[in-house]
């Protein structure tokens, strides 16, 4: 599976501009989506957070937010649970928030 993705990545990089013919070929065969690594910072709670936060979307979503306060990350985790039904148990919220704040925090509580 992973190998297939890597091949797709290489193929995609070689294409710099698409002409009508290539476009047609893509339509007939479909596309292969590349895999992109959005590495997580090592630290306490990483594995647990990985399982919980990478289920519905890439870690890129988190990186894109930039450094944020603890309150921001807490609200974001709660939004995932309340709005998108993320299956995260109440007792696991704090560990995820701590990990996010410790590694992607801006030093502010609020």
């Amino acid at each position: 599976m992973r190998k297939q993705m890597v091949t797709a990545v290489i193929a995609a990089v070689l294409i710099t501009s698409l002409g009508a013919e290539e476009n047609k070929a893509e339509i007939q065969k479909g596309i292969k989506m590349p895999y992109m690594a959005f590495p997580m910072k090592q630290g306490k709670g990483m594995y647990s957070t990985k399982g919980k936060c990478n289920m519905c979307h890439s870690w890129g979503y988190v990186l894109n937010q930039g450094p944020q306060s603890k309150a921001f990350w807490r609200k974001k985790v709660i939004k995932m649970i309340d709005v998108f039904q993320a299956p995260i148990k109440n007792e696991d919220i704090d560990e995820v928030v701590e990990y996010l704040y410790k590694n992607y925090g801006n030093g502010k509580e609020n």
Partner: protein
Amino acid sequence: MLRRDFFKQAALIAGSAAVGSTTVDADTTTHPVDNRKVADIAFPQKRPLITYSDRPPLLETPREVFANPITPNDLFFVRWHMPMIPTYINPHYFSIKIDGEVEKPVKITVDSLKDDFEPVEITSVLQCGGNSRSAFHPTPGGIQWGPGAMGCAKWKGARLKDVLAKAGLKKGAAWIKFHGLEKPVYTKTDGFVRALELDKLHDKIIIAYEMNGEALPYLNGFPVRLILPGFYSDSWVKMLSNITVTGTKPKLHFMDHAYRVPDNECECETPDNLAAKTKPIEEMNVNSLIGYPTSGIQVKQGAKLIVRGVAFDGGHGIAKVEISTDGGTSWQKATLDDGTQGSYAYRSFRHTLMPKQAGTLSIMARATNTKGETQPFAEEVKWNRGGYKYNGIDEVTVEVIS
């Protein structure tokens, strides 16, 4: 005063938004994060773009592309909400199902869309409601886009009105619900479904099967997507597979909670005092972007520098674009293109400068539409919790060398 050394703060990699709440006061607006670099991986049918996520794909178009009024398909931004997106669709099998409050539920294939309906062509801007969201502080919910979550293409398709007529609307019909093939991973998450009030249906809303003379790229919604000229792209449903007509307003997460702004005069609020009533973002406000030069490049003193960019609004049309090189104190009119692409398209502008002094040169662009609506300075744009509708005056800063 209004100038800001913003690009020093700009992130060089797409992954991180350097302008975080640590560097900027709460409840202020700046320029959005600029100068993020494109990724080294290209997505299918795309050149490398600024990449925030691969699952679902979130790709932003770099600034220099906006030196031209048509955005090529392989440089066009990409925004999906759900990670499960088909990577193969047989266009001869694919169909759009139309049901609900209709006389006769029908399935319309892409071939039928092309053969049985009058083709309509329209050049229109497609812009995410959260384009430039990274300008707002504190950080609003959503993807922290720079200014390139937009593009302009020539779309060809069939009128939604004509397609609906094939099924025949019942008397009680009031809302049209749209659903594409993207799906959440977790079945309990609400799917991305949008709805349009029947009153807002007009002749320019089409179901497009062509983009700039070719089939749509998969990542822009192959084989068909909805085109709503003048409106932000939240309802431009991609891989449009289902249209359901309803008698009452459907309850939908992505209608009721996302893509809304405060329902007040300034469409603004503060983090401590959120507006009680909100409304859908819908019509785009007046906006412009400089495509050339980009920030950080060097230009020669005394040599011609042709500033180029695009301006647009929700369809009233652009009346003028002005350029300032003194931080917004004085303005000179730029030259606009002939406008033949219509009022929903990018209006390209150009303006020749002759930098006289070596050092840093700020270039600002400000568009005004035919209703007299104009862009505020970046700092004057008011905050809203979703970070929608940013339209601050654009600014790039170049180095003039002697």
